[in-house]
């Protein structure tokens, strides 16, 4: 890549990034335009944390991007559409849902038996890790709200040192653009939401495509040298590469053919996959930083959700990475599923269909309207002050 095309690509990346921020403001604006009734409906839906968790899984499985779902959740929180308590289970669900992409990629190896077994194991180690971590941290969060507390502390800490204003210059550019679009759409809440969502999808899609082209090729040597070395280094590379390409699906999908070909083992790629889990949280953090740039209380709540995503993943990785026996659990489960899928390939399809689509749908519909009072919103986690402003 020569200097000219490099500069051009950088400009395009910046423009796409600005469009991503505009889309967040449009979505936030649309929720405000749709008023209190809409917010109450959303609040009621997400007040049950189990429903929230499975909404996160299903939505991310459908759009195959946790960045899209977590950014939307952050925008919703900033607009007062949902509470932080309602948002955290969705973010946890998004963590599970995002691993569907490389599991689907692994199904493409179906014509070669051994290759298929290894591919399934290589892809589902990410699924199993996320499922286990959610199974541990989700009840703990419900009982103690420790993730909420840590993320609140981080958000307030960052705001306290002026970090929330880090991206306020961006707001100077994006705010007039989003205001102009909202005015152009006659302040119709639904139209603004549709434009916001479409813009979010397009912006994130092209951001990933552009960054993948620019960054992944350059990361080839880093990947080759460090990915399958010491677990801690592999994890750091996983974080770095995922931050650079803004998509954990891209980085983890790279490992599937390597495992399928038998060049590396599931245990070897696992730390890298863990890094990707942390790296993918940067998108929602960026989104929250823009939304919090005006210093509003709602912006700080959005920041809290983004930090909850980071905290959840950092805790998950901290539990697994240092201890080989713990690290081996998802690896063993993934290998077990790989062996099962080779005996009957329908198991692999059934697994994807059940975990990512059928189970979330069943839980969402079966528990509709059931509210839980054991996970009520804490003081300050209110939305009414924001909606309709």
């Amino acid at each position, binding site marked *: 890549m020569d200097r000219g095309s490099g500069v051009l690509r950088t400009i395009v990346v910046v423009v796409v990034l600005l469009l991503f921020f505009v889309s967040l403001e449009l979505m936030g604006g649309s929720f405000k335009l749709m008023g209190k009734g809409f917010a109450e409906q959303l609040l009621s839906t997400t007040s049950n944390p189990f429903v929230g968790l499975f909404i996160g899984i299903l939505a991310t499985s459908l759009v195959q991007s946790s960045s899209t779902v977590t950014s939307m959740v952050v925008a919703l929180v900033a607009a007062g559409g949902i509470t932080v308590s309602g948002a955290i289970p969705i973010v946890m669900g998004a963590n599970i849902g995002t691993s569907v992409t490389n599991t*689907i990629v692994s*199904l*493409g*190896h*179906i*014509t*070669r*038996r*051994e*290759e298929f077994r290894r591919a399934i194991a290589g892809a589902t180690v990410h699924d199993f890790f996320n499922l286990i971590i959610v199974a541990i941290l989700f009840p703990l969060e419900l009982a103690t709200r420790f993730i909420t507390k840590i993320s609140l502390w981080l958000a307030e800490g960052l705001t306290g040192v002026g970090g929330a204003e880090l991206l306020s210059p961006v707001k100077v550019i994006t705010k007039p653009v989003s205001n102009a679009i909202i005015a152009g759409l006659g302040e119709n809440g639904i139209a603004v939401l549709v434009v916001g969502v479409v813009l979010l999808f397009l912006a994130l899609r092209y951001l990933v495509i552009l960054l993948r082209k620019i960054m992944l090729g350059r990361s080839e040597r880093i990947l080759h040298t460090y990915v399958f070395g010491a677990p801690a280094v592999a994890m750091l590379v996983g974080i770095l590469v995922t931050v650079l390409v803004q998509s954990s699906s891209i980085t983890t999908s790279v490992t599937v*053919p390597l495992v*399928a*070909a*038998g*060049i590396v083992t599931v245990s070897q790629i696992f730390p890298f996959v863990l890094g990707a889990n942390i790296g993918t949280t940067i998108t929602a953090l960026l989104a929250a930083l823009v939304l919090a740039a005006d210093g509003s209380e709602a912006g700080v709540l959005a920041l809290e959700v983004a930090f909850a995503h980071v905290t959840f993943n950092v805790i998950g990785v901290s539990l697994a990475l240092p201890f080989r026996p713990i690290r081996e659990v998802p690896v063993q489960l993934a290998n077990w599923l790989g062996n099962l899928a080779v005996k009957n*390939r329908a198991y692999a*399809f059934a697994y994807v269909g059940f975990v990512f689509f059928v189970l979330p749908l069943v839980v969402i519909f079966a528990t509709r309207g059931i509210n839980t009072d054991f996970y009520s919103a804490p003081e300050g986690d209110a939305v009414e002050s924001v909606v309709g402003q």
Partner: protein
Amino acid sequence: MLFFDLFRRDRPPLIEQSLENMQVMLDTSLRMFQDATASLLENEVLVRDLSEQDKTVNQKESAIRRAVLEHVAIDPSREMIFSLILISIVQDAERIGDLAKSIGEVAQLADGRRHGEHVGVLQDLRDRLVQVFRLTRDSFADADDEQARLAMERSSQIKQELTEFLRRVSEDDSLSPNTAVVLAVGSRMFSRVSSHLSNIASSVAMPFDQIRRPPGWE
């Protein structure tokens, strides 16, 4: 790769065609090997022209290389690993054809009929090698790693016995120079055929970076 491709268990057409060509190469090489060894060990007259059959094998090798390149250019996301495997081992299948032709040429060097204890040992090894041929062919077609491992293990055993056979021939003073050369060169070619078959089986039984290596699970 489109979403609905995931539910398809058939291969892309060019890869399917390459797999069929690979099977034709192995089938043709097996026929050539059987004809050539029948000439060498059972003193039969070669009816089929081994050179013509070898040309077929060579043409199939070119066809596979072209088809795989075209497939990778069109749809690199599907069957990428298998495409690389095909390119890695197609040369082994081609070399088996060459070696079978050479065994036929060695038979022509012999100045008398081949019989006796040494020939009996080679006949037994030849019969077992034909089984390895079939195991390799089937394991490759069905991507059956268990059959492929069996093929590699049997191939390894046959090669050890061929080394021992060569030692015994070298120590047998009763053999004429012509018979000793014919048996020695013939057995070395058996060993090479066995190695190439093992290489092909390794593409099913072994990780991608271990293709052409000896059995790694021993």
